[in-house]
């Protein structure tokens, strides 16, 4: 009964290289032979450092960047000491010493301590105690990112200076600019990203960056920082040439330095990094001692790396060596090529960036205005370098030519432009080991493997391999490879079938669902589940969509089950982050009266409304009303609901039109009011916003509304559909020009009813109209090609006739506690201001612990937000 003693592997550094090594080890069954302990300086599991750029930019929440959360370690039998720094290694005793003074023995030690930001010497950089001047930060860790994000969002700072215009600097600049800061990048070499690209490409990149509103200063060294003594924080930077730039925040991204102190303490050979051999074993260590290093802290054949792709290769080799899966595995160094999205610009660089020999052929295509720069460098008939900026679609193909020394076309320019061929480059020609996703180290082979294992959809492969889940610049290639691999296997590319279902819980498209509901006369949401859902199971996320559909199909017979409504539709108001609600009364066409305004003012005072705000929809929002006050507020207002919460017709914005405007060609205000009155409260697949303007100057933004109406003179009106100016911006398509307000109302009604019938759940008209095409809509709705206009008109009439102001429910709520039962929120919640910050009488900023909460990504994708 003798169990083989497991060897103890200690990993110092829980960053991207260390974590990848763990995954590779587990994949090779290392938990059989090793007991693993991990020391990580940062108090987290491990996260995707690359994504910090997205976090700083506010595009991703912290929680979405974790690769393995703390629980993952325990699940895999790994002892994680997170937040514990290793300070020393006792090589002879084979022990590491951590910051608590504790010693931990090891049989095998792996050092993966990464790098730290380099702070070039600058006057005033540090305070007396050695800490950084407040307001100055590096850009490496989650903690630094979090702190910068908080400062950037505080609204207290206006200007930021980024010192260093490499990859990190540009990402930091873009991130801070996203939060409204005025950003200047100061870079001491002569052009941006000089590590990766040549001067001409740098000039094109600079234009793109400046075009995005970021100031760039090159060839300028920062020599000092100034501080504001009052605030005790940075106030500006001083350049060598004497220029000064004011700054409330300074980010230093002037290079990185490998973290070698653990190696130095241990007495290992350290040059720029900890020197390792081809098996990642540290050189010249005592015989029998097993200390390895990988990642940015390691120096291999004279190279240290600053990007993730080489680390993946190192981790694979080391895992092969440690587990004996391939004892002869060897790392030969990585060709540094990069494909990145930097501050929104695609950049790929392969091999050398510019010519060095007189005989080098350097073929350049540059289109500064469009931000394009592409070049190839050929020496002795072989590709030795390529730089692509703005359009990197050719990079995978070029990489392959570079890696394998493939013969080149006689016309070198064909390397950049596949004359004749489609511009996409052929994924078919890619080698299996060609890396497609650099961020997560996924090769074409990995993708094909996932397909061979049964994934047949792009989404499925992305989930299985993590390809495309880093910076996202490779998504297009990933889709192509999947498409190709599936076809090569004789299969057909699938989409997750659920993408076509009307709601996730009932496996039917909208037309099939409508047919089944009509045929079986299903008038309630529970009846639909019972008859049509697998196993008759209800599904919480499907209820809202079904309610909307049933109301459309059965204007009078619909059996209303309140639990099938979203909270907003149960209480006819919009839930806020603190569990209170907003109240937006109808204000047709944006026109109001002194009497209405007086009532609103009185109600706001009486119920302590948190904020009174003029909305982007031309009416007034009362925010912060308690649920139990809603019926009283409505009663006191005695105005109808503005449906600001529903998937329904919201507002009709109007301009002042002929009555007042010297350019007015039609009475847009009156027509807008008439339209709003007619279609008030009509539920639609997604919200519906309208606008009417008195001339093509378009003051009420009718061109970008779901339905927009424009007076063009001579009594004529243009009706546009499918416009948007929200998350996507689209000018509406002209459906028809008609010659009376009545005709406008009729055509609008037809369009709305058609959209109600054929639009998918949560599909805004900006997707619906292009899906069906405006030509088809015109045939059906204007020319009546299908002879259905009469019926459509009758249906919308019936729907309009069924309107009842939901706020009337104040007198007879449908259920006990509908409004009176508080949902008890709750413990200390984010505080909503009692007046906007900065406004007269507003809450001071420092009293506002308002933090940003990220919605459920998937739900957002599904468009399920209100």
């Amino acid at each position, binding site marked *: 009964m003798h169990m083989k003693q497991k060897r103890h592997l200690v990993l110092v550094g829980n960053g991207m290289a260390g974590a990848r090594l763990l995954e590779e080890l587990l994949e090779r069954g290392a938990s059989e032979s090793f007991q693993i302990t991990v020391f990580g300086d940062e108090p987290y599991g491990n996260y995707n450092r690359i994504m910090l750029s997205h976090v700083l930019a506010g595009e991703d929440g912290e*929680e979405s960047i974790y690769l393995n959360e703390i629980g993952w370690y325990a699940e895999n039998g790994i002892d994680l000491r997170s937040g514990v720094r290793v300070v020393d290694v006792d090589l002879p005793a084979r022990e590491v010493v951590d910051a608590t003074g504790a010693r931990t023995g090891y049989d095998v030690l792996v050092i993966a301590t990464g790098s730290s930001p380099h702070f070039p010497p600058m006057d005033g950089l540090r305070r007396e105690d050695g800490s950084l001047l407040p307001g100055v930060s590096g850009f490496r860790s989650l903690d630094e990112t979090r702190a910068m994000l908080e400062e950037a969002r505080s609204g207290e700072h206006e200007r930021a200076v980024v010192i260093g215009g490499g990859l990190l600097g540009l990402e930091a600049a873009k991130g801070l600019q996203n939060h409204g800061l005025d950003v200047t990048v100061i870079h001491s070499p002569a052009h941006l990203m000089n590590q990766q690209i040549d001067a001409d490409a740098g000039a094109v990149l600079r234009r793109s960056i400046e075009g995005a509103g970021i100031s760039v200063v090159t060839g300028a060294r920062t020599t000092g920082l100034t501080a504001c003594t009052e605030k005790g924080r940075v106030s500006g930077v001083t350049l060598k040439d004497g220029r000064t730039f004011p700054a409330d925040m300074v980010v230093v991204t002037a290079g990185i330095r490998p973290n070698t102190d653990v190696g130095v303490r241990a007495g290992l050979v350290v040059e720029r990094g900890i020197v390792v051999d081809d098996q990642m074993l540290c050189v010249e260590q005592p015989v029998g001692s097993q200390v390895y290093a990988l990642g940015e802290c390691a120096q291999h054949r004279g190279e240290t790396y600053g990007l993730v792709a080489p680390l993946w290769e190192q981790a694979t080799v080391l895992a092969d060596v440690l587990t004996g899966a391939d004892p002869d595995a060897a790392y030969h160094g990585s060709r540094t090529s990069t494909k990145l999205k930097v501050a929104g610009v695609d950049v790929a660089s392969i091999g050398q960036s510019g010519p060095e020999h007189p005989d080098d052929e350097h073929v350049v295509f540059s289109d500064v205005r469009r931000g394009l720069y592409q070049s190839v460098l050929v020496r002795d008939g072989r590709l030795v370098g390529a730089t692509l900026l703005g359009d990197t679609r050719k990079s995978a193909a070029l990489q392959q030519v570079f890696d394998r020394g493939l013969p080149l076309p006689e016309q070198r320019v064909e390397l950049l432009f596949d004359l004749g061929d489609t511009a996409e480059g052929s994924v078919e020609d890619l080698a299996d080991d060609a890396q497609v996703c650099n961020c997560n180290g996924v090769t074409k082979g990995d993708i094909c493997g996932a397909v061979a294992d049964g994934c047949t959809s792009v989404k499925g492969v992305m989930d299985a391999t993590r390809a495309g889940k880093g910076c996202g610049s490779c998504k297009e290639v990933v889709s192509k490879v999947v498409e190709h691999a599936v076809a090569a296997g004789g299969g057909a590319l699938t989409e997750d079938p659920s993408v076509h279902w009307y709601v996730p*819980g009932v496996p039917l498209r909208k037309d099939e669902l409508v047919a089944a509901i009509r045929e079986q006369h299903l008038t309630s949401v*529970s009846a639909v589940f019972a008859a049509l859902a697998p196993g008759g*199971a*209800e*599904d*919480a*996320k499907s*209820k*809202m969509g079904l309610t909307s559909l049933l109301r459309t199909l059965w204007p009078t017979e619909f059996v209303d*089950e*309140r*639990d*099938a409504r*979203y*909270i907003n539709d149960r209480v006819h108001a919009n*839930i806020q*982050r*603190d*569990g209170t609600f907003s109240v937006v009364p109808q204000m047709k066409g944006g026109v109001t009266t002194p009497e209405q305004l007086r009532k609103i003012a009185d109600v706001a005072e009486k119920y302590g409304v948190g904020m009174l705000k003029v909305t982007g929809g031309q009416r007034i929002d009362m925010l912060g009303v308690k649920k139990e006050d809603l019926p009283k507020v409505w009663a006191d207002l005695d105005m109808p609901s503005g449906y600001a919460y529903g998937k329904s017709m919201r507002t009709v914005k109007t301009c002042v039109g002929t009555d007042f405007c010297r350019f007015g060609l039609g009475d847009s205000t009156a027509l807008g009011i008439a339209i709003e009155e007619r279609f008030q409260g009509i539920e639609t697949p997604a919200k519906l916003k309208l606008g009417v303007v008195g001339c093509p100057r378009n003051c009420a933004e009718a061109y970008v509304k779901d339905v927009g109406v424009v007076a063009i003179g001579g009594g004529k009106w243009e009706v546009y559909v499918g416009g948007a100016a929200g998350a996507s911006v689209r000018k509406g398509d002209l459906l028809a020009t008609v010659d009376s307000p009545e005709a406008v109302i009729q055509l609008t009604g037809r369009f709305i009813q058609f959209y109600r019938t054929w639009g998918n759940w949560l599909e805004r008209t900006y997707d619906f109209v292009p899906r069906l095409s405006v030509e088809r809509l015109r045939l059906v709705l204007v020319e009546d090609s299908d002879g259905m206009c009469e019926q459509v008109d009758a249906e919308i009439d019936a729907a309009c006739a069924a309107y009842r102001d939901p706020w009337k429910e104040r007198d007879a709520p449908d*259920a*006990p*506690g509908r409004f*009176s*039962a*508080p*949902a*008890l*929120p*709750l*413990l*200390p*919640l*984010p505080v909503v201001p009692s007046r906007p910050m900065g406004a007269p009488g507003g809450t001071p900023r420092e009293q506002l612990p308002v933090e940003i*909460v*990220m*919605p*459920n990504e*998937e*739900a957002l994708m599904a468009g*399920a*937000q209100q």
Partner: protein
Amino acid sequence: MTATTATTAPTAPTAAAPGVRVAALAEVPPGEGRAYVVDSTTGPAQVAVFHHRDGRVSAVDAVCPHSGGPLADGQIDSCVVVCPLHLNTWDLRTGESTSGQAPVRVHGVAVIDTPDGPQVHVTPA
């Protein structure tokens, strides 16, 4: 915390019924939730009680662990509750989140028949 916001004053457990009565079942419409404050060993607990359409009841913490949302105002089916604020989901039987959030506590809950109709009793976890 304001324990007084409970709509029904909880009454002490009796020998026959487990936990404390928080409401008549009829006060929680089918398919919906309501929140109550219930005393527990660790102080007053805010509990969301859900009345499933199949007649069962579930009870979990009323405060969404994600960002304090009112779970009782969420939508449910026979398995999960969807928080109204950011649409994260939790399994009502295990309390585990099915969208990657921290779990909620699951509280004991029973429906006791009385001459005044069925009553909901909660035993805080």
